[in-house]
């Protein structure tokens, strides 16, 4: 049952530059771990030290801040100890500083336990939008993901992901075998909160009929709206304008009256003098 798969380096190399260059905690990465291997309660070791104990299938850790670098990860049966036999092992997993990563222990398409690190997209989404990421981590063939009955993400295979920026709100999602309407998982109501990345994992095994969805939500990707267009009539401006007109009229009127008055009086006095 020992299977070593180092998809790590390849996946992480695809990390967008923006993520790698994130300024906050430049030297740390945010790492979550998802257990997607049915049936096995495990311990997880990073560089020989216990990272997680009694880790149950279908659970997700809180995000950990890990210094950037390379890690040797080992998953053992719960209680087997640091020297215990590896259920899954991945050496030299690169964790770039600033990245937000989810390491998933899951089954390959053929049903073998593997570790796959995914880089989570934490770039901003426009106001009112949410990001939906779907990851195929199940022992199952290619699938389509449907949102409200329409295929939204097509032909997804293990261990890959597809993502989209969609309007925030609740969708009814299900997973069907690619190109068919044979529902493999779901449907489930997914609340895609504005400004978040909702990451949905299909996990388990089609052969064992235990396919399930796991959900991870990362928030903080919201943007402000582009403005507040709070006036379209112009009546306030017009009222302001007419009061301006009245003011200027008063100024000009007073000036004219004063000028005329002086002219008249002077002319009168000049007449009187001559």
């Amino acid at each position: 049952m020992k299977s070593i798969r180092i998809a790590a380096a390849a996946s992480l190399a695809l990390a967008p530059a923006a993520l790698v260059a994130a300024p906050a905690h430049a030297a740390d990465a945010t790492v979550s771990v998802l257990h997607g291997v049915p049936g096995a309660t495990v311990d997880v070791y990073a560089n020989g030290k216990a990272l997680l104990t009694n880790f149950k299938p279908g659970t997700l850790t809180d995000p950990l801040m890990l210094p950037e670098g390379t890690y040797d990860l080992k998953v053992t049966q719960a209680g087997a100890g640091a020297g215990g036999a590896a259920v899954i092992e991945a050496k030299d997993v690169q964790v770039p500083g600033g990245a937000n990563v989810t390491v998933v222990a899951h089954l390959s398409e053929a049903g073998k336990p593997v570790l796959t690190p995914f880089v989570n997209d934490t770039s901003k989404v426009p106001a009112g939008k949410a990001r939906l990421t779907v990851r195929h981590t199940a022992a199952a063939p290619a699938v389509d993901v449907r949102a409200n009955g329409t295929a939204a993400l097509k032909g997804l295979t293990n261990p890959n992901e597809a993502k989209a920026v969609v309007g925030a709100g609740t969708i009814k999602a299900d997973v069907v075998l690619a190109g068919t309407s044979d529902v493999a998982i779901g449907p489930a109501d997914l609340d895609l909160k504005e400004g978040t990345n909702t990451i949905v994992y299909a996990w388990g095994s089609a052969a064992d009929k235990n396919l399930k969805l796991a959900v991870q939500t990362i928030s903080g990707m919201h943007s402000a709206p582009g403005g507040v267009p709070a006036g379209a009539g112009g009546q306030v401006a017009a009222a302001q304008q007419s009061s301006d007109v009245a003011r200027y009229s008063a100024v000009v009127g007073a000036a004219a009256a004063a000028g005329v008055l002086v002219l008249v009086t002077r002319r009168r006095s000049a007449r009187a003098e001559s």
Partner: protein
Amino acid sequence: MPGPQHRTAARAGSVTRDDVADVHVTPSRHRAPAGDPPAPFAEGREAGAGVGTEGPVPGRVRGHVPAGARGARTVAAALAAALLAGLAVAWLTRPQQSARPAGSEGIRSVTAPSSSAPGAPAARAPAAGASPSEPSSTPVSARPATVPAAPADGRQGMPEQLTIQRLGIDMPVVPQGVARDGEMALPATPAQVGWYRYGPRPGDRAGATVLAAHLDMPGYGIGPIAKVEDLRAGDVITVRSAATTHRFRVTGVASVRKTSLDLAALFARDGPPRLHVVTCGGEFDRERRRYDENVVVTAVPMT
């Protein structure tokens, strides 16, 4: 306010002292009928007379001025009087600068502290767990990653009514999102206030609750929100939701050009809890049907 009025008129007169001095040594001034000129004119003239008496040109001889020169002086006198009267009226009718209390600069500032920390990891669950900074020594906690149930309290805490008693504002609040063009959506009628539903609710522990309403609208006229420009620091704004009434104290009113408005600060979801009441102001572009400024009222929760 006779005091400042005279001072201003005198100052204005001193700008054109040479002309004025010429005018005031002429005999006509002394023969002008007293008492009947309009008030602004009289004030301007009196102030001008004050300047004239200081003027060092007493030597002009009356009655020996050539006709042409006299005509020119008459025109100069008339112009000076017109200028003084005009200035006096302009000063009397000057637009009132409403006192803008400090405290709303954040909306203008691009470096508002409230809009900081966008890159902070936000996925951290509130569930008790080991400190993430020492992962290698202490195991961290994990939670079931099942599909979360739809929140049953979707309407909980939504603002429903905006009241500003001092201004007689009492408007229903409706949740609003984002319009097709990416700007905040607003209720079509100026009679209602929109609440930016993706942002904080009144009573939330952090961030700015944004309420915005149309200043005016074709076919409606001027909306009640137009009066918020008259708010002063210390005024009370009440926002009612189904279960709770939240009271806020105004800390500032700012008119900000839309091009320099810090939208991230206006819609901030972090920082201290506050209320932003927004409408439009400034000049109106008839073709684009837009005002060029936003009026932003900032208020903080009253404890």
